[in-house]
């Protein structure tokens, strides 16, 4: 017996047109096999409908965003180097022009030189990023928090993000602890920025906390940022970066919507 197999899935879905459905309807009374299979398939469809989406565990895409950050940083450096090269070329061209002019009439030396240096400088100027106003936040970064003998793992990073989200949303005060002592953060900030994490000048990201501790046994700096969508809008995401103290490579990063 020939079974209309190619029609059975759509028959179960109820998406056959009248003509095709009539073909199956005509076949079914004489075919127990197809009747049974349609019954089984309907049961399977109902069972599959019971599968609901699970929430995405915290931090799953963190390493991806960290890698994206590294790639952007590399590309930025590359663009910068190209601009420098182009600027050097422009300066050289201007110098040739100056020499030519000087040979010609010996005048306007300073003007031409300044024109050349101006061209070179213009080539090196980076376009401002976004231009959004910095979000006014009540939880300004105060300095490096040294947490001796503290070893963060994924749960700890998650807690930092959750705590920061509470602060951003106003559900918790901004203090990180009354007796918290802060130390100069220059070295840590340099390391964080070297890793590709947002810089302190980034208009979208506001550094909330910078912690010196361990991450999964590796001495690390852990930066907690409040991230705004830009254009002066309030922060709506917490981003945590853990960066190795030695080498400044990213150990992990995670984000949490407020």
């Amino acid at each position, binding site marked *: *017996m*020939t*079974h209309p*197999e*190619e*029609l*059975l*899935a*759509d028959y*179960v879905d109820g998406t056959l047109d009248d003509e095709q459905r009539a073909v199956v309807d005509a076949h079914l009374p004489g075919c*127990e*096999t*197809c009747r*049974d*299979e349609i*019954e*089984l*398939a309907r*049961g*399977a*469809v109902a*069972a*599959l*409908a*019971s*599968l*609901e*989406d*699970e*929430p*995405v*565990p915290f931090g*799953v*895409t963190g*390493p*991806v*965003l960290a*890698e*994206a*950050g590294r*790639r*952007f940083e590399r*590309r930025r450096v590359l663009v910068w180097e190209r601009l420098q090269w182009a600027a050097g070329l422009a300066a050289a061209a201007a110098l040739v022009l100056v020499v030519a002019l000087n040979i010609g009439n010996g005048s306007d030396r300073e003007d031409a030189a300044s024109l050349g240096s101006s061209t070179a400088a213009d080539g090196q100027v980076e376009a401002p990023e976004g231009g959004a106003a910095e979000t006014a936040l009540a939880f300004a970064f105060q300095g490096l928090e040294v947490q001796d003998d503290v070893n963060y793992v994924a749960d700890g990073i998650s807690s930092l993000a959750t705590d920061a989200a509470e602060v951003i949303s106003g559900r918790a005060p901004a203090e990180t602890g009354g007796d918290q002592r802060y130390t100069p953060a220059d070295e840590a900030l340099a390391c964080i920025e070297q890793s590709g994490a947002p810089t302190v000048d980034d208009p*979208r990201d506001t550094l909330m906390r910078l912690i010196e501790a361990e991450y999964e046994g590796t001495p690390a700096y852990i930066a907690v940022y409040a*991230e705004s*969508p*830009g254009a002066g809008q309030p922060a*709506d*995401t917490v981003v945590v970066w853990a960066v190795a103290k030695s080498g400044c490579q990213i150990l992990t990063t995670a*984000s949490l*919507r407020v």
Partner: protein
Amino acid sequence: MPDTGARDEDLVRRFLSGDRAAFAALVERHERRVYNLALRMTGREEDARDATQDAFLTVLRKLSSFRGEAAFTTWLHRVAVNACYDLLRKRQRQPLLERGGDEDRPAAEPPPVPDHADASDLSIDVQRALLEVPQDFRVVMILHDVRDLPQDEVAQILGVPVGTVKSRLHRGRIALARAMGVPRSGERADPASPSEGTMTP
């Protein structure tokens, strides 16, 4: 970066022109669908995490080659499905000691999502049964019956004709129902039974 409502294709363009936040927005928008596809395909949270990361890393590497012939979500699903296949293949190559069972069975796959204690018994049973269905059937059911994607999009994602999708869908449903313990009505002796054959495209 929050979901701004921008079209995926616009976010892709912004990403390619250097807007890092656009990539974060794409990830945020689609991580749930990719993760849940991977969770249903692999049956294990740990594997779903790995497959999700692999998929988005591939997106990051290959987004510049996305030409827009297909919708971004179609392309993303294809990347995610491939990430799941790669992960399942790697797992099958694991040492026998870690496999714990018959080599020929896809049952080398581990028990399903034990860490979702709040899931209903029914959905756990369905997930467990799903893992007993051959991967090529399973993926079609997940995309069509669970993710609600139309058959022609499933065909596009998998790179197979729509007729193949219809066939795998029907066979997969039968296999799932049987794996869930629904009795084989009649124990078909009909050699031309539509769903007894091996899977072929």
